[in-house]
Each structure stands twice: as C-alpha cells, then as structure tokens.
C-alpha cells in the first residue's frame, strides 16, 4: 500500500505543493472501499466455489457409487457366466483342452480326463503338451510320435489351419482330435470318441461287399477280388472262376416257402465254405447263384477236382425243417488267362459254361469253350428278333380243329402260334416259345395270341369254341384275368366260347394265386382244360383242387394204343373224367386206327392230323364245313 499511498499523495498534491486533504481522503476512502469490495467478492466467490465443488464432489461420489455397484453387478454376472461356461464345458460329449501359444495347458474338461486317462493334477494349467502326450503314450491313450505330432500341430496352428487327426487305440477305439487355432496363437483341441461311427462305417462297408443272408462276399467284392487275382497271374500261375447254380432251387423256394429257401442257401454257403481251400473266395452273386475264385491254379485237374467236390458237397442229402432235401448244382468254369483277362469277361464265360452244364443235364460241370460264346450270340440275336417280330406283327395263328366223336362235328379249334420269319420262313413254337418265356416276352405274346384268337373265333359259327394255350408265366401274371376279359370284350366273343389250356406245371407253381385266377375265369364262363394230361408227376392230386372242364390226353398214350397197357390207361382216364364230369380229348390222333381206338375208349373228342393239320385262318371255315355234312348224314 506504500506505493498506492505515494500515488494518492501525488494526486492530492496541488500545483503549489500543498496537499488537498479532501482529495486525499476521497482517494484513501475509495481505496479502502474497493479493497473491502474485493474482499467481499472474494469471500463470496470462495464460498460459492466451495459449495459448487462440494456439490460436484457429491455428484462424483454418487457416480463412483453407481459405477462400483455396476462393477459388482458385472462381476456377479461374470461369475454366473463363468459357472455356465464351466457347466457347458464339463457337460460336452467331447473332451476339450485349450493350449496357449507356448503349447501349455490353459483349461481342460472332465471328459478330456476320462478320454485321455489322465488325472486332474497331470493336466494343470501351465502343463506342457509334450508331458501330456508322454503320459498318454505310457498308458496307451495316444499312438504316434509325440514330438512329430507337436511339430506338425504347431506348424498348422501357425498357418491358422484347423487340423483333425484320428488315433486308433487299443480295444477298437478311435479318437478324432480337432485342433482349432485361436487368435492369441494358442489352440483348442476337441477329442471325440468316434469308435462307434468307425465301427458303423466298417459294418456298412462290410454290408456293401457282403451278402446279408450268408455273409459271403457279394458280386461287388467278387469282382474286386477277381480283378486282384487277375493282376497277380503270370506265366505259370493261372486262376479259375466258377459259376454255380442250384438246380430246381426255384421249385423248392416256391413250394416250401422263402424261409425254407433261405435256410437252404445258408446251408449251401456253409458247405461251399467247408469244401474249398483257404485261398479260395466263395461269393453269393444272386438268388441261387454262387461263385468261386480259385487262385494259384497249376493243373486243370485241380479245377475239375474242386468242381467235383463242390457238386458232391451240395448234393449230400440234408433235412431242413423236417423235409428231406436233395439238391443238385451245375457249374460253369472259366480259366484266366485262357478264357479272358477281364473280370466281366471271365464271369460271362463261366456263366456260359454254366448254361451249357444245365442244358447238358443238371448236376454237372463244364469248362468254357469258345463255341459257347457263338451259341450265346445266336441266342441273343434270336431274342432281339423275337422282340422285333412282336412289334412288326410277324406272328400268325394256325388253328387245329377238334372233332366231337359222337356227332362227328367240329366243336373247337386250338390256336397255335407260328412265327412267319422274313428270312427263315415259318418257325414252329418249340423253337421260340421257351426263349420268349425266358426273356419275359411270353406275357405280351400271350396277350396278342389271346386277342387275335378271340377276334378270329368271332367270325366262326357260334357253336365253335376256340382253345388258347396259357404258359405258366402267363398264369403267374396278375394281369391274366383283366387281359382275358379285355380280349373277349374287344372281339365280342361270349366267354363260353373260349377254352384256356394249361399244363400240369402250372398247377405245381403259384398254387393259391393260380387257383384264384382259375376260379375267376371259370366264373366268367371261360372253359379250363388240362393240357398234355398224363405227363406230369403228381397228376391226380390237383384234380381235386380244381374241377377242369376237359382233360386232353397226351399224345404219347395215343401213339401207343396198340399196346394193351396204354389202352388201359386211356380207358381209366376217360372213366375217371366222366365220373368227375369232365370231357376228354385225345391228342395226336393221326390214323384211322387210332381214331377207332379212342372212340372205343370213350374219348369225347379227337384232335390230330387224322382230323386236320393246323390250318391258317382262311382254311378253318372249310374244315368246319367239311365235317358238317357228315353230321347231317349220320343224323
């Protein structure tokens, strides 16, 4: 204040050097007033500032409290989450272990301990992976070289690659380990026990290559083995392929049931397994077809020996479910490299040889010969031509009249199919019907015959019936009855003018379905005849099952009518038929003598060259007309 007062004095000093006290007082009072004002202002601002800061402080404390509470809350939530994660990890079906960038354990779950066989104290955080693998190698839960495993794993992690490795362990166990890199340079290893999956895969693979019924290799595996065998043959070493087919297996299956058939197949499989050497592959390649691969063949005689042994082994009588069974097998054999160096070629050739063996009489074996192939080719050509023939309408029907002995009138004409081959001329049914049956063409051909015969018969005098042969395969078709109805309707032919001829073999197969179809046809009004009667085995038993309208006595009896025994048989048949309400037809009557015989033996009808050869449709009317006057004459 010294300086200020000096200044105030200067200001209050007048020009004459006198001090103006009033001015000085004014200045001093003003200075005091200002100082007082400053003091008040400072006091006030200090107090307000303190108050404001206090308020702020309280605000901050509140914020701190709130944030602390929020932090505690978050901590609690984190703890809860950790518990959830812990629960989740420990309830995983996979073993989980996490490693840091130094290949040391971070965390693992209980399942990992179970799978690795390690104790908790061996998998503490910080434990090096190499230690774990050494423990596991010692107790057999790790297979492989631990150092090499870690080297490859670290390289994959460095590349950021997820790597899965499978370990085959003792006890048929398979463990898949998936190592997934983490952003921090470590990785997560999940261990999955895939033993079940691998077992299932193996089983599926086995099923894909084996027959479920016999557990023998199937066709697929046979081909693979055959390819391997062929690859191994040399100058001195050869191999043989057998195709084995059970004779009449279908009959057994059909008559005794599939279950029985399956039992038989298993039995045969066991026998085949038992009679071949250790290096021989036995396979089941189809229903009743088996195959053998005989590697390391030195002498053809060994092959023949084995074929003989197989035939005998199969033929040995057995009893299945109380039924005594005797079954034969036919065998076709192809040799490698003599008969081919491709699996398919060898199998085809063995099959050709089998076909030949069956054709030559069952229960035998045949080696493949090149001529079999030529025959097969001819057969294939025939099949193809047959199919074409049906499409192009090369089939024609001829009719053989049947004479009623009593009134000497034609009562019926049997439709007989012929193949008008464009190059080979007219071909008889015996040359193509079996093939048509084998390739399934018989159903379509049979339908054509049925329709054509019905249509033709519609133009005949109304008392003349038409007879149509049904093959066993047609009888087995579910479409038979609708086909017959369709043919009758299309032709406008009354059902009573149609006779269907079936053979004894039809009655042996599909008994129940066949009977049902026969009853339905009978119900429609269609007549049912038994053709070639007397040539089958259980000839009389099925006469009880179905009341046929007509029995056609086979030509073999008629040929031999000069013989007393034959005459007696025919007599017995006609008597029996009459007593059962059936009429009889003698087939194959070619001479006047035979005609006289059958008339005397009380056959109702006669069919054969003596009456008429099978005639083209155009000639049928003439034959009918030729017999009509006779009837008039006798009348």
């Amino acid at each position, binding site marked *: 204040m010294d300086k200020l007062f000096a200044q105030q004095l200067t200001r209050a000093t007048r020009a004459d050097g006198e001090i103006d006290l009033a001015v000085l007082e004014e200045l001093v009072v*003003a200075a005091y007033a200002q100082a007082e004002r400053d003091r008040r202002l400072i006091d*006030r601002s200090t107090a307000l500032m303190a108050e404001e800061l206090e308020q702020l402080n309280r605000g901050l404390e509140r914020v701190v409290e709130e944030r602390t509470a929020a932090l505690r809350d978050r901590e609690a939530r984190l703890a809860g989450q950790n518990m959830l994660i812990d629960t989740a990890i420990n309830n995983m079906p996979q073993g989980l272990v996490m490693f840091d960038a130094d290949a040391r354990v971070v965390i693992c779950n209980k399942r990992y301990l179970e799978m690795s066989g390690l104790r908790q104290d061996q998998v503490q955080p910080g434990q090096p992976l190499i230690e774990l693998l050494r423990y596991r190698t010692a107790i057999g839960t790790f297979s492989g070289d631990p150092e090499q495993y870690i080297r490859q794993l670290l390289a994959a992690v460095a590349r950021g690659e997820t790597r899965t490795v499978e370990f085959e362990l003792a006890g048929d166990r398979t463990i898949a380990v998936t190592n997934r890199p983490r952003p921090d340079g470590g990785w997560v290893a999940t261990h999955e026990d895939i033993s079940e999956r691998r077992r299932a895969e193996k089983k599926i693979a086995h099923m894909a290559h084996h027959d479920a019924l016999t557990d023998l290799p199937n066709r697929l595996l046979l081909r693979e083995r055959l390819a391997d065998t062929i690859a191994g043959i040399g100058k001195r070493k050869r191999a043989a392929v057998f195709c084995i087919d059970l004779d009449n297996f279908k009959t057994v299956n059909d008559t005794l049931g599939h279950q029985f058939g399956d039992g038989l197949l298993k039995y045969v499989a066991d026998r085949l397994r038992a009679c071949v050497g250790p290096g021989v592959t036995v396979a089941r390649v189809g229903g009743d077809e088996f195959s053998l691969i005989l590697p390391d063949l030195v002498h053809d005689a060994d092959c023949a020996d084995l074929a003989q042994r197989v035939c005998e082994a199969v033929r040995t009588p057995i009893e299945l479910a109380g039924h005594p069974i005797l079954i034969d097998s036919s065998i076709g054999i192809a040799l490698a490299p003599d008969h081919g160096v491709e699996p398919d070629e060898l199998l085809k050739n063995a099959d050709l040889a089998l076909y030949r063996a069956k054709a030559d009489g069952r229960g035998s074996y045949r080696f493949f010969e090149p001529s079999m192939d030529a025959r097969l080719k001819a057969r294939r050509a025939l099949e193809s031509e047959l199919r074409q023939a049906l499409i192009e309408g090369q089939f024609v029907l001829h009719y053989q009249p049947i004479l009623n002995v009593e009134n000497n009138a034609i009562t019926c004409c049997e439709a007989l199919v012929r193949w008008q081959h464009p190059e080979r001329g007219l071909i008889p049914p015996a040359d193509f019907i079996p093939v048509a049956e084998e390739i399934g063409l018989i159903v379509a051909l049979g339908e054509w015959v049925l329709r054509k015969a019905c249509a033709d018969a519609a133009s005949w005098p109304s008392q003349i019936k038409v007879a149509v042969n049904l093959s066993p395969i047609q009888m087995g078709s579910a479409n038979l009855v609708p086909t017959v109805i369709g043919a009758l309707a299309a032709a406008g032919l009354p059902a009573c003018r149609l006779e269907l001829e079936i053979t004894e073999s039809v009655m042996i197969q599909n008994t129940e379905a066949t009977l049902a179809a026969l009853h339905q046809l009978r119900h429609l009004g269609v007549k049912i005849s038994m053709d070639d009667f007397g040539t089958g085995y259980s000839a009389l038993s099925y006469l009880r099952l179905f009341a046929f309208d007509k029995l056609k006595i086979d030509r073999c009896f008629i040929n031999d009518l000069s013989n007393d025994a034959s005459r007696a048989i025919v007599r017995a048949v006609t008597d029996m038929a009459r007593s059962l309400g059936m009429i009889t037809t003698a087939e194959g009557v070619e001479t006047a003598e035979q005609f006289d015989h059958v008339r005397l033996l009380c056959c109702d009808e006669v069919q054969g060259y003596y009456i008429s050869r099978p005639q083209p449709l155009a000639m049928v009317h003439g034959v009918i007309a030729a017999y009509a006057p006779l009837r008039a004459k006798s009348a």
Partner: protein
Amino acid sequence: MRSEQISWNEGSGWISRSGDVGLANLVFYFGTRQALASGARYRELRSKYPGARLLGCSTGGQIRNDDVTDDDIAGLALRFDRTGLRLATATVAGPLGSRACGETIGRTLAQTNDDELSAIFVLSDGLSVNGSELVAGITAVVGNGVALTGGMAGDGALFQETLVGGDGPPRTHQVAAVGFYGNAVRIAHGSAGGWDEFGPRRRITRAQGNVLYELDGKPALDLYKRYLGDEADGLPGTALLFPLRICDPEYPDNEVVRTVLAVDHDARSMTFAGDMPEGWVAQLMRGNLDRIAIGAADAARQAAADIGGRDGVAILVSCIGRRLLMGQRVTEEVEAAGAELGRGMPRLGFYSYGEIAPHRAMGECQLHNQTMTVTVISETDL
C-alpha cells in the same frame, strides 16, 4: 522513425509533451467518448497534421507512459521514413456483419501496387461487432502471415456507445485499420492475462455466436448474478470481474478469455466480445492484483523480445475488466509493462472492450479479453 507524444485537455487544448516529429504521417489518439463525440478534436488534429493518417477511438481510460487518465486525450504522432501506410475504414450494422466487414478491411489493405503488406493495426466499434468474426474476416483475406493487432473501442464502465475514427470524425458502427507496407517496419507484439481460473469446469450447452445462454444446462446469467451478489446491480460492467476462460476440449491449449459486453435479463443471456462455441469448456476466472500486473509485464516482455528496429513506440491495449478490478492500483500494470519495455520508449494505449493480437501458443490472430496486449512499432535503418 520519429515520434511525438501529444495530449489534449479542457484547460490547455492540444500540447506536445515530448519529441518532435516534424511532418507526421500517422497519428493515434484515444479519449473518452464524451471528449471525442463532437468531432472537434478530430478537426483540430487534421489541421495540425494535414498529411497524416488519423486513427483513434473512444476508451475506458487512456494510457500514457506510466499514467492512466480519464480526463486527457492521449495521442502519438509518428513519422515513418521508409514505410508505406494505408488506411481502411468500414461501417458495420451489427455483430452479424462482422466477418464481411473484416473481409472488406482486409481487401482494401491487400489491394495495393506498393510494397508488401506486413502488418495491420485495427480499431473496432466495441459493442456492435463480434471481434472474433472481424479478425477471422481480415485474416481470411490477408492470411496469418500479416501481423494483426489492435483493439475494440470502449465506453468506460457504461457499455452504451463506442466511437472509432479513421481519417474522419469518430463514429459508432465503425471499423478503421492502418496497414504498414514494406520490409522496414517492424511490429512486435505480446499478449497476456494473469487471471486465475477458479471453480468447476463447465460446458457451454447453449450459445449462438457471441451470445451465451446456458452453462451446464443452466442460465449463464443466473450463475453470474449468484457470484456477484450485490454487485449484480452493476451488470454488465461488474461481470468483467469474472471473465470466462473457454477452450475447445479437443485442443485445450487453444484457450481464450471472454468478457461480457451486455446482458439480457429477460432472456437470461449474456453477450460476449467474441464467439462462445457450444460444446467448449468454460471456467470462471478472477483477478489477483499482483498477478494481473505480472501478466502485463509478461505481455510487454514478449513484445520487447522481438523489437527489430530503432526508436520504437508501444501501443498498449488493456482490458476494461482489468481496470475495474484494479481500481486506483491500475497504474501498477502500466508501470510493470513500462519497466519491461524501457522507460525511454514512448507508450500510448487505452482500456478496451477487447484486444486483438496473435495467440501466444497457436500463432493465429484472435480476439482476446481481459488481457494486456502490447504492440511495438519501429522501423529499421537503411
């Protein structure tokens, strides 16, 4: 360069107090609004210095060497030998025209075939102009390379009308500036406050240009009234006792101090001498007499360090708020500045409503408040 200090008072009219300038080419003069309003003083100077540029304004008190006076008009006549001078004036209707006005001044001074423009000294109406925008307008045209200093005219503690004259009678709504050309002239400057921040930091939550409505969501005027207590009756003048330090929170070093020019009791708003950007941080300041004087010395020291020529003169522009705070002791800051500049250097100045000088830290020219800014003008020899 030669200089002559002159003064005017009722009793003796214009007298020369020291030096002899001969034919002056630039005269600065500062006086109270009442003394300048008639235009008579301007006419007297015009006839006394017919070839000179005359630049003056009303004030909150005049500084002449170590004295602060309210009665006299203080003047300084300068004779430059090797420096080109040009005067620019512009009229401004209100704060919104501030930038355009600055651009006009800048263009007038920059458009010349003479030597290169090296410095500008500007005087602006103290109440109708947003000083920040004015400065921005000038520097937008002339660039930051041209030293820009000056101040905003004052009206004592009344805040009613301020006058500026540039080669004409002083008037309201006027801005006048002189440009210095060539490489002989040397302009040194310094700026400092010496105020202390106190209390919590606040956020400018509502403002428009230089009008502040809210701090931390509360009316700013309420805060001032609360702090001023009885002194609130003296608003807006007493608000100068608590200036606001404001800064962009992203650049906290780029701080400026703002003082109040006017208050609106109905809107509870306060008008400041420069922009109050929303989102900036604001903190109350208060003065301590000793540190205010130290601040003045600091400003003078900055300018003294850069004096490049001989026979320099100093123009001191200090804030009215400093004078209101210091009362009779205001001479202490003038003396402190003088001590740094040297007693022999003629010093002229005034108490203003805003100071203009480059920012000490950032270098770009800004409007300041509550500071002492010192501009030392000199000219080099051949």
